[in-house]
């Protein structure tokens, strides 16, 4: 799986989970202000990503630092690298 494919899958799963317009999914989009998500959505975002990539991330400390979409991209790419998925 390439980094580009990972980003594409992340954006697709978030668009589906939160009914977002794909055009709004730019890397610098803030999750709360730009995409309109909140703390409850962050919980379900983790579940959606775990489901999309068959990984376990809910206990990762780094998730709490996520602010913009690009943070999610970097986090999942890093995790995929750790797991040898790249």
């Amino acid at each position, binding site marked *: 799986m390439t980094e580009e494919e990972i980003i594409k899958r992340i954006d697709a799963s978030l668009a589906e989970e939160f009914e977002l317009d794909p055009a709004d999914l730019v890397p610098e989009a803030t999750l709360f202000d730009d995409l309109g998500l909140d703390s*409850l*959505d962050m*919980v*379900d975002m983790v*579940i959606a990503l775990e489901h999309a990539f068959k990984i376990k991330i809910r206990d990762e400390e780094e998730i709490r630092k996520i602010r913009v979409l690009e943070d999610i991209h970097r986090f999942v790419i890093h995790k995929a690298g750790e797991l040898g998925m790249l």
Partner: protein
Amino acid sequence: MERRRVVVTGMGAVSPFGTGVGTLAESILGGRSGVRRVPALEHYEGLGSLVAAPVEGIDPKIIPRKHRRTMSPMSVYATLATEEAMRQARLDKEHCAGGDMGVAIGSSVGSTISTQQSYSDFFNFNSLEKMRSTGFFKIMNHSCAANVCHALGITGRVLAASSACSTSCQTVGYGAEMVAFGRQEIMICGGAEEYHPLITATFDIMNASSRGFNQHPERTPRPFDRDRDGVVCADGCGVVVLESLDSARRRGVPVLAEVAGFATVCDITNMVNPSTDYMEICIRKALEDAGLTPDRIDYINAHATGTDQGDRAESEAVGRVFGPRTPVSSLKGHMGHTMAASGALEIVAVIELMNRGCIPPTLNLENVAPDCAGIRHVTAVEFEETSCVLKNNFAFGGVNSSIILRRMDHD
């Protein structure tokens, strides 16, 4: 303490016939049945009743995800019915946000559909893996009331009465009392239910569900009929907007009816089986609250769900209070038993039909059962002016409720 007159200025409905008060009224007048065979019920071993009257064809996505994410179907119904009622009552965002407008909408239980979806892994495998953060907001007992408030921006009192089949007769009655005594200027009152096979199973296990008409769903339930064989479960939501008569006149909105009297009592003789005595007590208390004698009631909309004991007890109670001349019918034959929604949905239908000059019949009442005789059953639509109607609801737990609605131009 001053008691203000309370009136209905808006109504909304989601019923087995679809959305809208007009659809509900026209379906009743057209003699339609909302009951159908439900294939999903065939998958439960030992379940004898395979019929129900579930709401179909509603796209929840007409509610933005921001609000919909905490809604199960019953909250979707409640939101749509409230929006319809608010449009009729000409209420806008300013009314909602002022703190003088509250919501009293209840359900029998929280969402069973969501409990199953969100927590089956938790119950079966002790696992939180697939548990969604929003699951609880769909199963909490005040889910409908809270979701309606958040979706529509209503900031006043929140009440989520829960008394099974009496739920929304109570919310309307309690809401009317809040307005009457000046605690709220406007109350949105109603009840909602969402269909799940577990509801049918609950009645089936008590031998109270209709099992004999699986091949002819439209012929059941049969309130007061010789061949009645039990309840047919249904879902939906009914909502009314209540405000003081002064408020309605000040705002210049049409008054649909007055809530003239209300009573609710607990029948402690049995958790399930109703007693004629406590039904009579409840009806007489409602009449007393309205300051009316029985002869002033022009029509009785019965609870009558098509069970042996319930229909018999209610027939006897109505006969004791009103004798053999006052018209009586039940709407369960048309749309089944919408449970927590039944009080408000039937109140909505009764007010709409009263204002159209019609008395609805009991659908499927072909041969009045001997134990339901002695009162005047309505078996075809009667085009008759009515000015005061009584609506009954009697629930598991012995929770009886009766409400009296008066047409304002007959004041």
